[in-house]
């Protein structure tokens, strides 16, 4: 018994000494040989891949691709560190602070700038084939580039469009636009929303997927009204334009005129998809990845997809994710190999088809994709919509300060929507705040 006590104390003393001397034993999860890149390692190298994936198509696709990679590369093993999106960045940053760095991480385009500018990601410009970026959509490629260096490879993209309740539309005799040029204006869109409330029996006209802090999804409205967020050189904000004021006033109307549920502001926590699936709202502005969910959950109605409203310009959200190698990765060579595999034409085709995403490569045209949704044609709408992402928006969104700007947007838009703050005041506050962040 005393022995047990003694051994416990000894273990604890070792722990403290290790701590104090700072030469910690890193989390040893691989049975790797130490970093020689010239000779083939005798034992398989394990790379740690941090990512998130929703249960179902996305998660299964990840698993399948990883297995395929391991089979094709018997000397590399992949340790899947898949988590939930909600706490993903919290965990990742904590890990980086604690020197427990994965080899590969998945990152939204909005997050790449923050990590690349902080020196967390590995510069892979020279390690990729020279013309590697040409097949990728230009807005996406610029999003993973910082100061002319490439830090990540686009894995897929997503965008927002309008899902509408077909049953309600048929009841009201409305046909949704089938061509991008015919997309509704915002006034037309809001009129339809009102009609859905008054005549179709929906409680709300629509819902917008900017809840839970995803306030950057408001930016399409800004661009649709002809405004912009940052100047082309990213040095000042252009949020003080009259177009921006229009966009603020317009979005405020959603809440003032009770066209959207009050709990769906940018900081809201309500479940917006249920609201649409149960016919409580007649339309939802949401992304392509939800199509298979609506297939499952809309039991009493059918739905259709049409383009985002357009006023001065068409625009939509630049969504999607990329894969990056961490600067402090233990096995950068194998990590890069993994990324190249995951973003190859073949893998990407497989991944987006199964996950309901949009391809990041120009060469993967709609005819090459077989989505497993009930109405595969709706994906064409999304693919076309993804081409309307303004280059200026892509640049701004991928800039290093985007996370801070998103927070500012969350605070101010929430005040605008739920606290009755004057749009002019909001505009002033945004201008001031963003300019400060940019300093």
């Amino acid at each position, binding site marked *: 018994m005393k022995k047990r006590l003694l051994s416990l104390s000894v273990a604890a003393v070792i722990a403290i000494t290790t701590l104090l001397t700072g030469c910690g034993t*890193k989390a040893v999860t691989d049975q790797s040989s130490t970093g020689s890149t010239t000779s083939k390692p005798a034992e398989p190298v394990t790379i740690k891949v941090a990512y998130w994936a929703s249960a179902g198509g996305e998660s299964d696709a990840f698993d399948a691709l990883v297995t395929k990679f391991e089979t094709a590369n018997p000397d590399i093993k992949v340790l899947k560190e898949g988590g939930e999106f909600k706490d993903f960045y919290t965990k990742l940053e904590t890990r980086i*602070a604690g020197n427990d760095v994965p080899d590969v991480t998945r990152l939204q385009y909005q997050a790449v700038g923050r990590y690349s500018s902080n020196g967390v990601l590995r510069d892979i410009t020279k390690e990729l084939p020279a013309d590697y970026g040409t097949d990728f959509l230009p807005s996406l490629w610029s999003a993973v580039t910082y100061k002319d260096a490439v830090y990540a490879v686009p894995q897929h993209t997503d965008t927002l469009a309008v899902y509408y309740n077909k049953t309600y539309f048929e009841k009201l005799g409305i046909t949704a636009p089938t061509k991008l040029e015919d997309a509704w204006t915002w006034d037309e869109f809001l009129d339809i929303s009102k009609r859905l409330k008054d005549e179709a029996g929906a409680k709300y006209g629509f819902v917008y997927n900017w809840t839970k802090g995803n306030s950057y999804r408001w930016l399409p409205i800004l661009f649709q009204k002809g405004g912009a967020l940052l100047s082309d050189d990213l040095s000042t904000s252009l949020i003080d334009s009259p177009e921006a004021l229009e966009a603020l006033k317009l979005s405020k109307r959603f809440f003032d005129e009770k066209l959207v549920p009050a709990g769906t502001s940018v900081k809201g926590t309500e479940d917006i998809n*249920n609201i649409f699936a149960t016919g409580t709202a007649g339309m939802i502005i949401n992304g392509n990845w939800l199509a298979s969910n609506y297939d499952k959950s809309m039991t009493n109605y059918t739905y259709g997809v049409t383009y985002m409203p357009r006023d001065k310009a068409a625009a939509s959200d630049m969504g999607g994710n990329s894969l990056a190698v961490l600067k402090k990765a233990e096995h950068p060579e194998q990590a890069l190999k993994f990324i190249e595999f995951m973003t190859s034409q073949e893998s990407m085709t497989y991944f987006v088809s199964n996950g309901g995403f949009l391809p990041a490569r120009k060469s993967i045209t709609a005819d090459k994709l077989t989505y497993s949704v009930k109405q595969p044609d709706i994906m064409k709408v999304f693919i076309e919509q993804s081409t309307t992402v303004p280059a200026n928006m892509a640049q701004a969104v991928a800039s290093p300060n985007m996370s801070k700007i998103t927070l500012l947007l969350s605070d101010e838009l929430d005040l605008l929507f739920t606290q009755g703050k004057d749009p002019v005041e909001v505009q002033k506050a945004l201008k001031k705040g963003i300019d400060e962040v940019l300093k």
Partner: protein
Amino acid sequence: MIKSETLKNRIGFIILLFAAIITLFPFFWMLSTALKSSGELFSKVPILFPSNPQWSNFADIFKLAPFERYFLNSGIVATSSVLLTVFINLLAGYTFAKYQFKGRKVMFMIVLSTLMIPMQIIMVPNFIILSKLGWLNSYAGLIIPRAAEAFGLFLSKQFMDEIPVELIEAARIDGEGEFKIFIKIILPNCKPLIAILSIFTFMWRWNDFLWPLIITSSKDMYTVQLGLASFVGQFYVEWNSLMAISLLAVIPVLIVFLIFQKLIVQGIATSGIKG
């Protein structure tokens, strides 16, 4: 006089009964929701008793995520924690209660003060420490750091205070070693304390959420609470599955509680008296 007492008792009973129904309603609602089909979840008039209870919802959970693994992990963590925590808290509680040594009061105060540290503000340093120890994403990391439970130490000392010192002194006169005294004299007299500490530690570790969240990085090390929380982040929240998972996450602790209820309640009650 007697009549008014009985009347008061009856009124009291009715009030408490009513309050009990309100207290239990969320659990009932969890079960009711868990048994509904997706279509029934959002009916205009909430259905209290689903006509066709979908018991399969519970089985379906295991298809969504490897909950058997999560249960195994939670079980291993909780049980090991009980063994470790109870032992070291009994020993330490005894020492604080019955020994005089320099710094006794200060150290005990320091221990109690740890109750006031919100876990969130020491998350990152803890992570770094665990990383250096190599305990990330491991059972060691889940169990050992949490073994020191300030509240458990507090309970233990309270209890040990009450043990008559004569017992110890008699053993000393007989020439028994200190540790032997602990094992042979103190422990047998601590049965209620051991029981209570075990039960509480089990419950505390079963319900831990933030700690496992910080240190696990792969799904095969998730605990039940993490598994539950992981469903909240999904784009599409199926409330019937969520409620089913919540129930499963809660049931083990509920069972432990219901079996040992009397003991638990007594233990809590005594801890509060001395303040």
